[in-house]
């Protein structure tokens, strides 16, 4: 069983790793660990998209054809990478080991870093442990996502030989036909490998996604703020109870939050001139859309922000059109899903969402009260506006990176205030924190950018006291 699970996870990871490595080419700054963290969510996304396409073509969802395709692709990508001499094993060193063991590092720093590393590691291990203990129990997991997965797994198909209204098993069970299939197909993938729909083992994808997201976020933050501060931020990030909770279940909010954060991180790299990251940002944005429909309200502003950035830059090499195209081309992978969905009159989001409009401006106050309550999340969200004030005038890359996140949050506030359906769900406390969770890692990423800037702006004391005069005279900086 263990070996089978390793293959079930290893194959998409290998595919994702090779895809990332080919896209990044000779980028030496992105180490092996960082690539591995991107590999799992990316590879799994590519696998489920292909499962959907095979399902459309009525190819039975059995292990043979489903696994053969990514295996062949991985082999092909490996051959291509070798042929182009793309480095597949760049350095893995993150500097943490040296910080923990090197006697040249002050003992207090060594102790704090060791403690924080252990804390984060134990926390992630406990999420894996908790996942392995409980079978699927949370309402939205089994009622929306796993019910579809179970149906597809047992039927060995996407149940498309039915009237369009009953596609994806809608006629057989109470589920939403318009929801993207990434999550259920991930569960089908694991089930195909283990040979049954196991209510515990199918959940393994969630803690894995959380781990990849956490390590990747740490590596991003370490570049910005240094390793010690990044570890502190990581422990604070992982200390958000709703995040750990979702790490043990199969809601789509965590995979979406990961895809959005990976996309945003790649976007930041691209904004800073690492051109190879444009398609990576595009691929993760496409996978976000394949995970949940609301991500469109993150991805579209991201595209707009990218367009403005690219337009504002001088015409260098590669040209503006090439840069923007390399961001856009990856979206081709989700065109079949949307073409299918809209050609069969499936809408966006849950089928039960009513179109009735209302106006509840008091929602803004309630949103603020929820944020100040510190429920569900650690203080990182609360500190974002404070850090923004302390950081002073933000630089252009930060503004471009913040734009999609702000638009995404405004979109949610808008639907709470103006639609009867979401207003009601907001009032009963069922949507706010979950929706915020999808933006939470991206907000932490912005936090890290701001922490760096705040530290830079307050790095130097005003003046050192003069030893000769005996009385300190303040020098103007």
């Amino acid at each position: 069983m263990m070996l089978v699970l390793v293959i079930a996870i290893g194959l998409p990871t290998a595919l994702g790793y090779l895809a990332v490595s080919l896209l990044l080419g000779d980028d030496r700054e992105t180490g092996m660990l960082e690539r591995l963290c991107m590999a799992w969510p990316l590879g799994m996304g590519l696998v489920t998209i292909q499962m959907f396409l095979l399902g459309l073509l009525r190819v039975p969802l059995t292990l043979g054809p489903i696994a053969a395709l990514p295996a062949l692709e991985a082999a092909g990508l490996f051959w291509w990478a070798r042929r182009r001499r793309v480095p597949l094993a760049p350095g893995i060193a993150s500097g943490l080991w040296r910080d923990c063991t090197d006697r040249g590092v002050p003992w207090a720093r060594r102790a704090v870093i060791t403690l924080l590393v252990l804390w984060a590691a134990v926390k992630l291990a406990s999420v894996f442990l908790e996942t392995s203990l409980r079978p699927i129990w949370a309402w939205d997991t089994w009622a929306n996502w796993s019910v579809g997965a179970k149906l597809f797994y047992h039927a060995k198909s996407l149940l498309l030989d039915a009237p369009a209204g009953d596609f994806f098993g809608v006629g057989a069970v109470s589920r939403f036909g318009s929801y993207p299939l990434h999550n259920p197909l991930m569960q089908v993938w694991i089930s195909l490998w283990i040979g049954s729909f196991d209510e515990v083992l199918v959940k393994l994808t969630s803690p894995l996604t959380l781990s990849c997201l956490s390590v990747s976020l740490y590596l991003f933050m370490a570049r910005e703020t240094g390793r010690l501060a990044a570890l502190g931020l990581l422990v604070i990030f992982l200390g958000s109870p709703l995040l750990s909770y979702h790490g043990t279940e199969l809601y789509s909010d965590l995979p979406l939050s990961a895809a959005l954060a990976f996309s945003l991180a790649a976007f930041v790299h691209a904004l800073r001139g690492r051109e190879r990251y444009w398609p990576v940002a595009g691929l993760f944005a496409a996978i976000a859309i394949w995970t949940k429909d609301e991500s469109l309200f993150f991805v579209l502003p991201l595209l707009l922000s990218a367009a403005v950035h690219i337009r504002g830059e001088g015409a260098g090499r590669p040209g503006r059109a090439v840069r923007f195209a390399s961001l856009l081309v990856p979206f081709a992978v989700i065109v079949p899903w949307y073409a299918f969905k809209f050609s069969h009159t499936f809408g966006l989001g849950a089928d039960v969402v009513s179109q009735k409009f209302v106006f509840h401006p008091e929602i803004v106050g309630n949103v603020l009260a929820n944020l100040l309550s510190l429920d569900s999340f650690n203080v990182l969200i609360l500190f974002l506006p404070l850090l923004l004030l302390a950081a002073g005038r933000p630089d252009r890359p930060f503004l471009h990176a913040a734009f999609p996140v702000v638009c995404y949050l405004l979109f949610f506030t808008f639907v709470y205030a103006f639609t009867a359906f979401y207003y009601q769900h907001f009032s009963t406390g069922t949507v706010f924190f979950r929706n915020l969770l999808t933006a939470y890692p991206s907000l932490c990423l912005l936090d890290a950018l701001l922490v760096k800037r705040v530290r830079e702006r307050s790095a130097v004391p005003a003046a050192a006291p003069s030893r000769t005069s005996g009385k300190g005279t303040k020098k103007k900086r």
Partner: protein
Amino acid sequence: MDGFWQQLLLPPPISGVTINTVWISPAARTAVYAVMAAAFAAGLFVFLAKRYRLAGAVRRGILTALFAAGILYSLRADFGWSLWVRQDLRTFGGLPTEEKLLKLDGALYDFVRRARTVVPGDYLLFSPDQYLLWRTEYLLLPLRKRTSAPTVIVLADPQAVYDPQKKVFTRGDLRLEGMAPLLQYGPDAYIVTRQ
């Protein structure tokens, strides 16, 4: 220990059938805000003493508050988390998946297990409770619900009536004759099927 300290130091394990929000107690919230304020003040004082300009010291104070309050929050949240993990380790540790489901859903899963052995194929399911309805539907998969199914499953539905003498099942306008009992789990949980 009084209410405040109990709330602060002994958070209850997380629980619930859905995961939309994890509440924190007023005591914990107060403590985090208090530490935030104290850390900011301490940071400001220390960095002013180190001859930082006021703006610089304020910035450093904000960073100090972020890390102090964040670490405190994480300490408490992870303690609550560990209680939940320990509780689940006691409840589910070492059990096979079937037994875990039995622990989780209790009588409902026991009913479903028995139903799986007797329901020949498609079924019709009646329950006024949405959780029971959907959860049973989910647990019974790959058996599927179908409006024309010959087998009827009833779970705590006061509208459903089965007359074993006349072998008639009625629910509202629906009247099915020639229905034989297949499983009687309890007074309000049973399965009947067309003979």
